């Protein structure tokens, strides 16, 4: 198995380098997509299925789609006009840092175990059996709440930049509509399944949200879904649903049990699933609107 | 209760009034003048009441904790009352003069706003209870005087402003470093008669000498000790009331007052002498006296000559402080008041010559006695006082300085005083001779502006004060009497 790991690591480095130094934009993005999928494979090798799912769905899938869309609208890549001295300095700095990291990693003392026993002990009361979801939605729920705030801040920034004239997607021909009839409902189904599965096995709100966004994007390209036509207020409400639900749950928990985000005993699972439902919907909507662009709240069309 | 609010009230009569004046639009001349004069008169009365209270022995203190171990303290002891009286009275007179002088000028609200801020800083310096408060008001004085120096806005004014800022902020840095260093060594440095350093001089003699040097350098810039006096003649480009009140009275005296506080109330007289710091200070003062008088001889511009005369006269005070004898101290302290009154008379008169006849040079002073008799008479009284002619104030302080010199076994001081008095005569008498005994020029300069009562009365009053200080020297409330009361505390 070591040989496979070495080959995979080498493939990852080659894909990474090709993504960063390909002359044209689509070549670079193609390299990046391959790089993302290979990295997802490496997470599977390191027994991190949740992360592998997220990396494949969001890390390379959605990010790749965003980049392809942006690359289409950007001017052709400017030649690298970085002076020689700065190039050499950057090379020196990069090698130094990589070398330092390698040294640090090589002589790591035996992994000091701190979190594992704690998680195992508290997993019982967390209401879910998948430890990653327990950490995300219960032990460190504050991180997840702020992470949703990051998503919303990104959307506010994109909206504040003002309209960029989103072109109508090109007509995709007759074959696309039957494909859509199969894929759209299926993606919603898979998203729901992933959401429910998250409590016991690898899955959860983020992966479900990504799949949901995939389905919505397919609909958007099919022309069936045009966010520009919908008034901005409700769209913003949909995106903000995740954070609003989470914050409301946090404050309600504080009222009920006296400490922030401490779900009432016994009802952990229901609270977590309710929050994850809100998260999935708002992640799907936010990622879609990050793709298509959005007007500010009250602005006329 | 009275102990706390009176010092704050005196400070507030100018600090609180400054923003009010800044807000007044330029046009509202009467409103601004009434506010100004009301504040000035209230301050004079309060200072009078304070002096009477201090004479009866009540002590005052208002304390505002700024940081652990660092307090902003306002207190009023005999020494601060002396300086307070000087600045309050002279500010009142100079405000009247300035209102008349700036008639029709621009940016007058800004001028009077910063003018009262300067006096607030001077009052703060006078009443500061510890070295930290002294430092704060000392720096505020720099910031408040700078806009007045550049008030005319011309290129030359800004050049003078830049030089003024360079000197005073450089001095400020030295003072700040010295103060922090002393605080690091001695904890809180409050002004107490005979000094507060306790056994420190025994442990760190060298450090304390360096700190003394830093403090005196910082304060010496404003006291115009020789190497640091460059800014004074150059900033004469400022309008007459500014050079009168600030560069002859407030700023320069603040420097001298600072030297007094450091020598008397921080280091204490014995420690200064023990550390061997008294002699170099006296030498520096002597050099400044000689140097100032020499430069004054060659100046043709009237205000520059008066400026150099100020440089030398202020060092009399420093000399009085540096000569470790009670009599010399009395002479020095009295000279603080006398020099202030005399110098302001000279500057106000010079301002009138410039405004009335457009005369700025000594060579143009011919026949001024006939053209502007009142101003020239005041000028003459001031000049004679400076030279030290007996009945006037200057004579009294020089007499005590000479007696102090004898008492401190430094006969050289007598020679110094005699020589400098001669030089004073050498640069003042020609002006008087031109004004009184020379016929006015045939084509008399067109009368620029009628000298209203606002410009004529203040120099006359200050000339009267010179006479009074000289004749009534022995009265209890005269400057001499009050300095005897102070020195009796310092030298028990």
């Amino acid at each position: 198995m070591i040989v496979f790991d070495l080959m995979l690591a080498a493939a990852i480095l080659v894909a990474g380098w090709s993504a960063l130094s390909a002359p044209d934009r689509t070549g670079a993005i193609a390299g990046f997509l391959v790089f993302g999928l290979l990295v997802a494979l490496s997470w599977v090798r390191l027994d991190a299925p949740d992360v592998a799912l997220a990396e494949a769905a969001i890390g390379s899938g959605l990010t790749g789609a965003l980049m392809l869309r942006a690359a289409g609208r950007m001017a052709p890549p400017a030649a690298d006009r970085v002076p020689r001295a700065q190039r050499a300095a950057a090379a020196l700095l990069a090698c130094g840092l990589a070398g330092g990291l390698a040294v640090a990693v090589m002589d790591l003392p035996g992994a000091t175990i701190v979190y594992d026993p704690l998680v195992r002990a508290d997993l019982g009361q967390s209401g879910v059996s998948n430890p990653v979801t327990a950490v995300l939605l219960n032990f460190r729920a504050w991180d997840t709440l702020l992470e949703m705030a990051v998503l919303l801040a990104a959307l506010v920034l994109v909206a504040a930049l003002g309209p960029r004239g989103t072109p109508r997607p090109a007509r995709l021909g007759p074959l696309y509509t039957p494909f859509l009839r199969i894929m759209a409902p299926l993606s919603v189904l898979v998203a729901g399944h992933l959401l429910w599965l998250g409590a016991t096995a690898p899955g959860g709100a983020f992966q479900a949200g990504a799949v949901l966004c995939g389905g919505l994007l397919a609909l958007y390209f099919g022309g069936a879904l045009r966010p520009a036509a919908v008034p901005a207020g409700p769209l913003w409400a949909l995106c903000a649903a995740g954070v609003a639900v989470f914050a409301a749950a946090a404050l309600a928990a504080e009222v009920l049990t006296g400490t922030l985000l401490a779900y009432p005993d016994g009802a952990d699972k229901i609270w977590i699933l309710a929050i994850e439902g809100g998260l999935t919907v708002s992640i799907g909507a936010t990622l879609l609107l990050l793709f298509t662009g959005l007007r500010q709240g009250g602005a006329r069309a | 209760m009275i102990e706390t609010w009176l010092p704050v009230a005196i400070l507030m009569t100018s600090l609180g009034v400054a923003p009010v004046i800044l807000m007044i639009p330029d046009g509202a001349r009467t409103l601004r003048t009434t506010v100004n004069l009301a504040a000035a008169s209230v301050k004079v009365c309060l200072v009078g009441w304070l002096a009477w209270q201090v004479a009866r022995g009540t002590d005052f203190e208002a304390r505002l904790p700024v940081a652990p171990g660092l307090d902003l303290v306002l207190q009023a002891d005999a020494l601060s009352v002396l300086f307070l009286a000087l600045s309050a009275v002279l500010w009142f007179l100079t405000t009247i003069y300035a209102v008349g002088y700036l008639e029709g000028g621009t940016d007058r609200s800004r001028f009077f706003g910063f003018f009262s801020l300067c006096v607030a800083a001077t009052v703060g310096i006078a009443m500061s209870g510890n070295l930290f408060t002294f430092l704060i008001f000392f720096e505020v004085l720099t910031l408040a005087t700078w806009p007045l120096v550049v008030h005319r806005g011309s290129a030359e004014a800004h050049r003078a402003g830049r030089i003024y800022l360079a000197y005073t902020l450089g001095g400020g840095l030295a003072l700040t470093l010295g103060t922090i260093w002393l605080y690091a060594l001695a904890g809180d440095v409050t002004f107490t008669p005979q000094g507060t350093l306790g056994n420190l001089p025994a442990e760190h003699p060298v450090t304390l000498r360096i700190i003394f040097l830093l403090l005196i350098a910082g304060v010496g810039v404003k006291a115009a000790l020789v190497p640091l006096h460059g800014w004074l003649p150059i900033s004469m480009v400022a309008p007459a009331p500014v050079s009168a009140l600030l560069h002859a009275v407030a700023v320069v005296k603040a420097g001298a007052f600072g030297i007094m506080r450091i020598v008397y109330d921080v280091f204490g007289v014995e420690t200064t002498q023990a550390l061997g710091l008294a002699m170099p200070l006296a030498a520096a003062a002597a050099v400044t006296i000689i140097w100032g008088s020499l430069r004054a001889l060659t100046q043709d511009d009237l205000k520059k000559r008066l400026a150099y005369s100020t440089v030398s006269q202020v060092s009399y005070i420093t000399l009085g402080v540096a000569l470790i004898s009670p009599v010399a101290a009395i002479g020095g302290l009295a000279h603080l008041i006398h020099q202030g009154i005399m110098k302001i008379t000279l500057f106000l008169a010079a301002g009138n010559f410039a405004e009335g006849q457009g005369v700025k040079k000594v060579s143009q002073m011919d026949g001024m006695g006939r053209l502007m008799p009142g101003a020239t008479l005041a000028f003459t009284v001031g000049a004679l006082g400076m030279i030290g002619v007996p009945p006037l104030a200057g004579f009294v302080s020089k007499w005590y300085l000479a007696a102090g010199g004898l008492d401190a076994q430094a006969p050289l001081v007598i020679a110094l005083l005699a020589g400098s008095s001669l030089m004073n005569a050498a640069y003042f008498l020609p002006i008087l001779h031109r004004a009184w005994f020379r016929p006015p020029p045939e084509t008399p300069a067109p009368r620029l502006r009628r000298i209203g009562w606002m410009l004529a009365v203040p120099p006359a009053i200050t000339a009267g004060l010179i006479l009074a200080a000289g004749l009534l020297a022995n009265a209890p409330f005269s400057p001499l009497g009050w300095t005897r009361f102070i020195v009796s505390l310092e030298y028990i």
Partner: protein
Amino acid sequence: MMVLTLLGHLLIAGGVVLLLLAALGLWRFPDLHTRLHALTKADTAGVALVALGAGLLSGSAATLVPLTLCAVLVAISGATTGHLIARSALDEEHASWRSTRHDSV
């Protein structure tokens, strides 16, 4: 039981060979359309075989269902994307033609 595991391995081997052929085709074929041809055909078949083989090896029907679902999805999306890429390539060629001769497909 041995037969099932042997069959599983055989299916997976066949699938891998097909995938290798698709990669070779991608590398060697001259233009877009032929590459598309290789990719869509071989990939769909290769993935289906590997999925079936893995399903047999895992031995339980429960894992077989999601694997076959994956195979079906790959088949559908592979075919559609192949069609879309071919269509857009055709449009671009016509765009360059149309600028020279004004007719449209």
